[in-house]
């Protein structure tokens, strides 16, 4: 267990430790102090540009939620539960309230993993604490928005999600910058604890600016009989993103599904998931769909099977629509036991001429047909989500202007 002093010491040593993947970010070129923002009583009182930005990433802070969390720069401005069985707090308040939270704090992500985790460990905690109490089942999601509203800011977030035994929790998080923010850095540490027979869906929609760099660091642990549907959507330009969440299926029969949808126009996008199947009858699936009209996308997927009977499947499929883009697909399977069932498929290609022509004979222009095919390609059938949330996520990909090169 890391006591706070230990976290500080570990992170101190990792201040300049480069990450294994992704381009290196000069932390010193960003401001670490942010102006404080006032708390508001209800989502309606949020500044209109925040509300608009939240909506833009599919986060409508309305009645159809079981909770809401909004953070502007480093300030939590709203943290509200709308359902008895779930707790929504800003993490600093939660750490003060619950001593036991120290047993979860920095347990799945190491403070000295790299300079980014170290940087978060060195700064005052800001982020959300979400907890579904034992047996509490929610249908509506907790909606959260992490809003980076100041140019040149290094926004640091540390989130903890706990789904207690037998609970059901859905979370949708939109991370976004308004158009006027030219440059910024977002580092997000997230630790998810999914306990026995709990069911969690976590959907993250990113919408950044052309000069924004993003380094999420996520650790997930799953107990017996639990399930996770983890979904990541990036459709707007970004300078660089690198993330490689680690998920350990430690309990018998745990099931995890990762879906990644990326439409790349520029930048360096390095994303994937790193899954360990540590218990019997566990299964994991990772599906990534990438469309590139520009920029470098590195789509990773790594599955490690450690016990007999574990099942894993990876699918990395890319459509490369321009010479200006690159899709580098890296599916990795690491079998460390007998009786495993692990597979992957990877493909990088172009839009089929036959499909394009077929739609054109129905009267669609070449551009319209391309857009329809791209949308369809990115429409991943996401498992483990309530119908309403499925539709909301679908709407996000539908409203975007997704064209060919």
């Amino acid at each position, binding site marked *: 267990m890391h006591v706070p002093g230990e976290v500080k010491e570990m992170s101190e040593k990792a201040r300049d430790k480069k990450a294994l993947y992704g381009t290196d970010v000069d932390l010193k070129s960003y401001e670490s102090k942010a102006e404080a923002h006032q708390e508001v009583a209800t989502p309606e009182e949020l500044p209109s540009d925040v509300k608009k930005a939240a909506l833009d990433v599919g986060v409508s802070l309305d009645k159809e939620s079981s909770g809401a969390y909004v953070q502007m720069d480093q300030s939590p401005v709203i943290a509200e539960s709308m359902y008895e069985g779930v707790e929504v707090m800003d993490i600093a308040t939660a750490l003060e309230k619950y001593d036991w939270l120290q047993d979860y704090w920095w347990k799945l992500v190491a403070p000295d993993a790299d300079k980014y985790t170290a940087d978060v460990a060195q700064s005052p905690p800001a982020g959300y604490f979400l907890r579904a109490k034992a047996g509490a089942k929610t249908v509506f999601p907790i909606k959260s928005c992490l809003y980076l509203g100041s140019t040149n800011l290094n926004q640091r977030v540390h989130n903890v999600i706990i789904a207690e035994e037998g609970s059901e929790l859905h979370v949708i998080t939109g991370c976004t910058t308004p158009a006027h923010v030219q440059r910024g850095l977002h580092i997000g540490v997230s630790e998810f604890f999914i306990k026995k027979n709990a069911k969690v869906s976590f959907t993250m929609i990113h919408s950044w600016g052309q000069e924004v760099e993003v380094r999420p660091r996520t650790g997930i642990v799953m107990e017996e009989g639990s399930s996770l549907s983890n979904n990541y959507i990036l459709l707007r330009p970004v300078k660089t993103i690198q993330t490689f969440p680690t998920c350990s299926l430690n309990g018998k029969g745990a099931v995890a599904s990762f879906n990644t949808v990326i439409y790349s126009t520029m930048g360096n996008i390095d994303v994937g998931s790193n899954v360990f199947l540590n218990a019997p009858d566990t299964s994991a699936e990772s599906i990534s769909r990438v469309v590139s009209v520009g920029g470098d996308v590195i789509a990773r997927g790594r599955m490690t099977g450690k016990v007999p009977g574990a099942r894993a499947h990876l699918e990395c499929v890319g459509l490369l629509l321009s010479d200006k883009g690159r899709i580098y697909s890296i599916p990795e399977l690491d079998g460390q036991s007998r009786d495993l069932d692990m597979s992957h498929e990877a493909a990088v290609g172009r839009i089929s001429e036959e499909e394009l022509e*077929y*739609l054109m004979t129905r*009267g669609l222009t070449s551009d319209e*047909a391309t857009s329809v095919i791209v949308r*369809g390609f990115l429409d991943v059938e996401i498992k483990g989500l309530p119908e309403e949330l499925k539709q909301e996520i679908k709407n996000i990909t539908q409203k975007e202007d997704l064209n060919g090169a």
Partner: protein
Amino acid sequence: MVRLLEIRNLYVSIGGKQVLKDVNLRIGSGETHALFGPNGTGKTTLLNAIMGLPRYEVDRGGIFFKGQDITRMSMDQRAKLGIGMAFQRPPAIRGLKLKDLIKIINPKADGVRILKQMDFENFANRDVNRGFSGGEVKRSEMVQLLAQQPDFTMLDEPDSGVDLENIKLIGEAIDVLTQKGTRPSARNKSGIIITHFGHILDYMKTDRAHVMLGRSVVCSGDPKEILEQIKANGYEGCVACMCPAK
């Protein structure tokens, strides 16, 4: 009769290889024609060339539709001008639901009614043609054409792989598309159908038929008469019949 489609001395090649040779064809407004011929004689090629698929290069001659020269026109422009086609083996489109495609093709189309008409409601939320059986693909094509409402409908073996019950359904849909329910003088929609077996012709009305042999249209006449001749003497009979004339 107003001429809707006219093909004049059409020569087409694919990658330098000649696939159509001196094709001449006229289809009047309100008429539905059948196109017969053995495999590999250019029937599908002719329909694809009329539709304007890019691989089909017109070397000589021209295609005229509603009085316009469409020989160099793009596929989508031809579709907007009123040409529609049911493919023999269309591709599947992942992530595009049939009901959404109906709306894209024609925002005003009554998708519910069309799907019901083709007994295809259960496929509304399926990806277009994905995992469809041979017969289901044909009904999917008819659904799309009923939404598109083309003035000139081209059907490439809409009956192959289809059971009898659905052949009737498809035949009736073709009659709807070509306005066979209205009196002849009121019809202005036309069509052309490729069929090998002719069963479907029992369920739809055709006005004229053509036989293609050796990359060209060699014979035209009454559909029943021609079909009977083919059934009796095979396409060899057609060859023999054509010999003195050519």
